[in-house]
Every structure is written in C-alpha cells, then in structure tokens.
C-alpha cells in the first residue's frame, strides 16, 4: 500500500471495527414458539420472551406482530377469573429498561390467524415484531407442543 493511503486505510478500518463492534441489541426476542395448527382449525397461539436493554428511563412498546405465513396476528391475554378463562385483546405491551416480558401459556400470547397453506406444515414460523419508534425485530418461532410452563 502506498504510504499516503496507510493512515486513511487505518482510520477506515477503525470506523468499520467500531461500527461492527458488538453492542447488545436494545431488544432481544428469545425462545419463540408456536403451537401446531390442529386439523381444520385456522388459528393458533405463539409465545416468546422479549427483553428491553434500554438505558434507565427509556421504554419500548410492542404494538404488533406480523408473519408472512399468517394473514393476521393479534396480541391477547388469558386471564383466569374465579376459574373462568377470559381471553382479551391487548393493544400493546410496554417494557421498561431492563424489563423482560414473557408471552407464555395462561398469560400473554400471540393469536395467529388466517394461516397460509404453507403455515400448516411449517416447522418454523418467521415473526416480525413491531415496536413504536424502533426497528422491528425478526425471529424464527419453532413449531411444537409444550406444557403449561412452556417446557
């Protein structure tokens, strides 16, 4: 390399290194899974864990979820009131800095509706989680049956 280019090259390398430097993502979505579609049914539930690694005072609000394999996905919450199951839609979920929210059986869950033909036999469901004023997060949800503790 000509001597003239060495410093700019080094600086460029430094910038690239700094940009690629791993920093924990503000939003981490893990352990996403979806129950398989029962025969003849057009709706199933999805679960996952979301963690917001923001600075103190910051918050993140999950407002919706989409998937190329389902026509519509809604956020719902199961509530057991005196032994009676009540499922209600949820407009959004806000996470404070350092907070983890679990979508798990018996609580918050995704209701995945209008499955495409491919959805029925899929072993993984791609999900896109939308947050207010933030980049969406993409995740692959594994299809399978799990117990009430998600295990």
């Amino acid at each position, binding site marked *: 390399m000509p001597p003239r280019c060495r410093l700019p090259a080094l600086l460029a390398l430094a910038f690239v290194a700094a940009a690629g430097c791993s920093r924990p993502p503000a939003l981490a979505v893990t352990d996403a899974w979806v*129950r398989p579609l*029962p*025969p*003849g*049914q057009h*709706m*199933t*539930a999805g679960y996952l864990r979301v963690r917001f690694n923001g600075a103190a005072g910051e918050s993140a609000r999950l407002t919706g979820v989409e998937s190329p394999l389902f026509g*519509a996905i*809604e956020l*719902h919450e*199961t509530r*057991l009131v005196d*032994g*009676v*199951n*009540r*499922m*209600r*839609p949820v407009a959004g979920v806000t996470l404070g800095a350092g907070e983890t929210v679990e979508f798990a*059986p*018996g609580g918050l*869950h995704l*209701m*995945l509706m209008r499955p495409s033909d491919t959805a029925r036999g899929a072993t993984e469901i791609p999900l896109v989680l939308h947050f207010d004023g933030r980049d969406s997060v993409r995740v692959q949800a594994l299809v399978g*049956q*799990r*117990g*009430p503790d998600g295990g």
Partner: protein
Amino acid sequence: MKSRYQLTITLVLAVAAMAAGVAVQRGLDAPSATAALAAGTAIVPPRPLTPFSLQFGDAGVFDKSWLEGRHTLLFFGFANCPDICPTTLATLADTVERLRAAGSPEPAVVFVSVDPERDTPEAARDYARFFDASFHAATGDDPALKELTKPLGILFMDVPLGSGGYTVDHSTALLLIDPGARLAAVFSAPHDAETLARDLERVLAEA
C-alpha cells in the same frame, strides 16, 4: 354383688364396646386416596349427574349411561381457543401418557365444546384427537350443553372481539366422573400433568 350372669353380660358388652371403638377409630384414621388429592378437591360423597344428552364426534350419544362403568375426565372449551384449551389438552395428553407408562388404568377424556356454532361434533373430535388419539369430543346446542354444565357449576359465555369474531369465556376445571356417573373430583387450573397423573393413579387404583 351382682349375679355371675349379670357380670358376664357386662364384661362381654364392655369388650364388645372396646372392640367397636377400636374399629371405628381405625376406620377414621385410614387414609382415603380420594380425600388426599394434590391437584384438586374430592367430592365426598360423589354427586350424581343429572340427565343430559350430547353428541359425540363419532356419532354416538354422550349421556349418563356412557359414563357408567368407567372413570371420565371432562374438559369444557372450544376449538377457536388459542391458549388455554390447547394447553390443557396438551397437559391431559401428557397426563395419560404418564399413566400409560406407569401401567396404570387411565380415565376416558371427553372434550366438550361449548361453541357449537363453530365446532361441529366432528370438528371437536378432530381437534381433541390431535392431542391424543384416544380423546373423545362431544357437543350439542346451548340448552343441551347447559343441562350438563349448569348442575356441575361450569360456566360459558360468548364474548365479542373487536376484530368481529368472538371468544368464549369458560370454566377451566377438569371434572372427574366416577363409574357411577357421579362427580367425584374437581381439578382447578393451572393443571400440572405430573401431579394430575399421581392423583389419578391413586384414585383409579383404589376403584
């Protein structure tokens, strides 16, 4: 001093009374499997069901006579239920698997759909069988369902959803019916397969 005759009678009665006392005490102390349920509450004495008639997914009639001679677990839900119903049916499938693995008799499982508008008996059967091939399913119109659910304290009601559809709020208790078609135990949510299997193993072994 009383006559020897009277003394003998007194002694015999005293011994008999003591023996009876011991027997009663033993009976009271004896642990009853159904009274010691970990996952639910035993109904003592078991409560006879009132008559009802629903339709099984495979076109048989589900009524009191079907319940006689076997233990049955009843679960009330609907197929368009994304969370609680699949979770409970998956737990029930896990439960019967554990009983089978332990070589224990298993109860019949009947999923009763409280959403006959959307769940035909056949659709309910296919739904239930998805979780375990042995599961039965039945449904009927609202009045027919209420004949079964009301006396058992099971509630269900349609609730509109903003998206234009509706959900069905429903009781989540699992009901154990004994071979005399009587309510023998109630298992409340949340349900755990391991605990449920242990309780059922004891109850069915005792029967």
